[in-house]
């Protein structure tokens, strides 16, 4: 397999995905839920109120104290991990530099996160977002599925436009098992992404937004009178690039990212801006860890 070598996989297997705000599981997992339920481990007592399931009444306490108490049990559950990778045309960039190629970088990142999830017993589902023809993998559980995941990822290509808002809203509506969701995208979606994120959050997802940009997008170096052609949409823009304009562009990019970060902070979304010249393992082990999504 070409995405990762063995040593990297070992390193990844020591990590665990952390979700603070997701609490629903159907199978026993490796992590404890903060939701009280019908498990076996005792958690606490509370007073009985009308309508409570009488089966969960602690009759021993009732006999001793003659007061009805409901026994609360700690429920152990698994985590559903969703990895949504933007495979729109703009992700196939830069076309001539495989080192900083955004899609390759996103695939590696998705692979790594998926492997961490599978190794941790989480239910992992990967979706390659691409217009109307999104491709889905999973959900699967267990590290034995990692290889299949990597094979699926290697087959990915980036092309065509993607409406991030629409795609995310649709995904939220179809969700059967909300959980931790990572969206890997350059966010070059003219219609925006906020509504999609809101829809996901309202369905109980804990959202991590990994914003992938290539170095030439962060600091373009072209100059002169140009006609810029959007590789994703084919839109054209005429511009005369000089130092002042380039400086203005950097300023605009900065404020755009600041705006995204502020929005995410307000919504308790993990926002992780990434430039593809950063080594991806460094990203996993340091940047994403620092964001508190992985430990």
């Amino acid at each position: 397999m070409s995405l990762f070598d063995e040593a990297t996989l070992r390193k990844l297997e020591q990590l665990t995905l952390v979700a603070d705000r997701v609490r629903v599981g159907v199978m026993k997992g490796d992590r404890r839920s903060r939701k009280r339920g019908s498990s076996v481990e005792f958690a606490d007592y509370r007073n009985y109120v009308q309508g409570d399931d009488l089966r969960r009444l602690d009759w021993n306490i009732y006999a001793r104290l003659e007061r009805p108490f409901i026994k609360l049990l700690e429920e152990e559950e698994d985590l559903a991990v969703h990895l949504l990778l933007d495979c729109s045309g703009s992700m196939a960039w830069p076309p001539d530099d495989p080192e900083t190629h955004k899609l390759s970088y996103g695939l590696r990142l998705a692979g790594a996160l998926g492997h961490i999830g599978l190794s941790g017993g989480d239910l992992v589902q990967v979706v390659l977002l691409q217009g109307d023809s999104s491709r889905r993998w999973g959900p699967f559980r267990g590290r034995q599925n990692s290889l299949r995941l990597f094979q699926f990822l290697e087959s990915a290509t980036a092309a065509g436009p993607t409406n991030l808002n629409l795609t995310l809203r649709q995904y939220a509506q179809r969700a059967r098992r909300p959980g931790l969701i990572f969206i890997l995208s350059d966010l070059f979606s003219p219609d925006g992404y906020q509504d999609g994120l809101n829809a996901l959050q309202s369905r109980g997802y804990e959202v991590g937004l990994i914003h992938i940009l290539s170095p030439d997008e962060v600091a373009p170096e072209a100059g002169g009178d140009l006609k810029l052609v959007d590789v994703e949409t084919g839109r054209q823009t005429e511009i005369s690039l000089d130092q002042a304009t380039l400086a203005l562009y950097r300023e605009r990019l900065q404020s755009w990212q600041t705006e995204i970060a502020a929005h995410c902070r307000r919504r308790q979304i993990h926002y992780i801006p990434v430039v593809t010249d950063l080594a991806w393992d460094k990203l996993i082990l340091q940047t994403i860890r620092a964001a508190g999504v992985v430990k």
Partner: protein
Amino acid sequence: MSLLAPLALLLGLLAGPIILLYMLRLRRQEMPVSSVMLWEKLLRDREANAPWQRLRRNLLLLLQLLILAALVLALARPFWPIPTIASGSVVVLLDGSASMLATDVEPNRFTAATREVERLISNLSGQDRMTIILVGQTPTVLAAAANDRSLLRQALSEASALPVTADWEAAFALAAGAAQGFQDATILLISDGGVRGNLPPLPAELVYLPIGTASENLAISALATRPIAGDLQLLASVTNYGRQAQQTLLTLNVDGRLFDSRRLNVPAGETTSLSWALPPGTTAVNAQLEPQGEDFLAADNQAWVVNQGGLNRRILLITAGNLFLEQIFTVLPGLTSFKASPAAVASQGLDDGFDLTVWDGVALPEPLPDGDLLIINPQGENSLLRVTGIFTATSLSRVSDSPLTQYVEWGDLRIRQAQQVTAPWAETVIGAEGGPLLLAGEREGRRIVILTFDLRDSDLPLRIAFPILMANITEWLNPGQIVERQNYQPGDLVTLKPPPGSTAVIITYPDGRQRTLIPGEELLAINDTWLTGLYQLTLRELGGERPGGYFAVNLFDQQESDITVAAAVQIGETAVVQASDKDVGQREIWPWLALAALLLMMGEWWVFYRG
């Protein structure tokens, strides 16, 4: 508005290539990017911040087209028709004589005249040609058949009026030559009308543009001296050329000292003459007018007269009695002779201030008197000479070539006896077998001539050679006039004839300026006598410098002093009347268009870099 070069408008087709280049320039290089989202936002912001940015490119094209339009229009040479005095081939006769210095128009008539010419130059159209002739004492062509305005203006700026008499005959001859060969020639006479002389008919239309308004001028019209019965009389005439009676103060200075001052009342158009008896020995007289009323020409308010070439040569003859000598010094021109007896000299001593002392058979006293010396029949011994005896072998053996012997025909001169004289510093000019007869030399800055025999012991006084020899001797001892006349008019050629032996002639002008002329083979002359006043001459010789007299330059010219503006000018049978703006000139506006193009270019540059 019309165009002089309408074909230049074809250059307007260059707008095509400009628009083409502009469109080519808009075909930008395509560059793929991952997304134009941010770039579009950026452009939206920029356009919101500076709305004219969107227009910038169109503005540049517009400015470039405007520049082209301005340049093409300038090349097409548009002009406004304006009324002018003359057009076509114009020959301007610009009066630069003394009367044009009158100040009845500000600052003076000549400047007003040059302004008129300037106006004509500005109105010259493309095919017009202009010749400018400055009419002074010697008319000069300042510019010949020129169309270049800057050249004409440059030529005009170098012209100036001088207190001289204009030579209209020569000027008309030049104008006729300049107008020949042009069908549309117009001769424009810009003057105050003091045109005179035997003027030739002109081959072109003559237009007269009078300059000046007033005629008030008071002038010294004559100032002269003449000897009457041994006295020197000064005559002065003051003329009022104006239309009103004038009061004036006439001040006379004799040799730099105030001599007399009189108040005169001169009726309009009249001349008042006065006379004075001058002190003997007067060298130069200056007369000055101070008019009390209006007087628009200052050049004729002063006059100078020089008496006897400015060299008042006083001769003292010391003799016991010699009729020949007394007669000859009275007859020779330019000399004032005085006589004294040896006894009077011995008892009273000598007066100073004589240019030449003649010692006839008298022993010289010690110390020697000042000035040059002519010693005839020397006696005794002194610091100059020693008489050692008498010789009778007086046949002429040698006559040297000297200014003293010039034009003298000696024939068979008979001399009874002569003194044997030894004077080592002197050269023998005429030698006899027995010894020298005539010696001459310089000693202690003075010239000395020794005639070694008594005139009465020879037949020399009876010969024609005698006055010539004496004239030569006095001329050599104390040279006379080196100019022909004492009075000149401004601009006259003054010929100088320095005496032999002069190494230089120094001329001091009335304004104190000095000019040194070195005698050589060429004729010595000056003609830059533009200033009226007294010119002083100094001769430089081996022994030092000595005065060479004076000459005066005065504007005694009735035509120039009469500054009345003539309404018409009479040329032959024809009276030429005043000009009017009947022709149509052209005022070109291309310099303004060129300036507009320059400003537009600067604006285009600013728009380009500002963006």
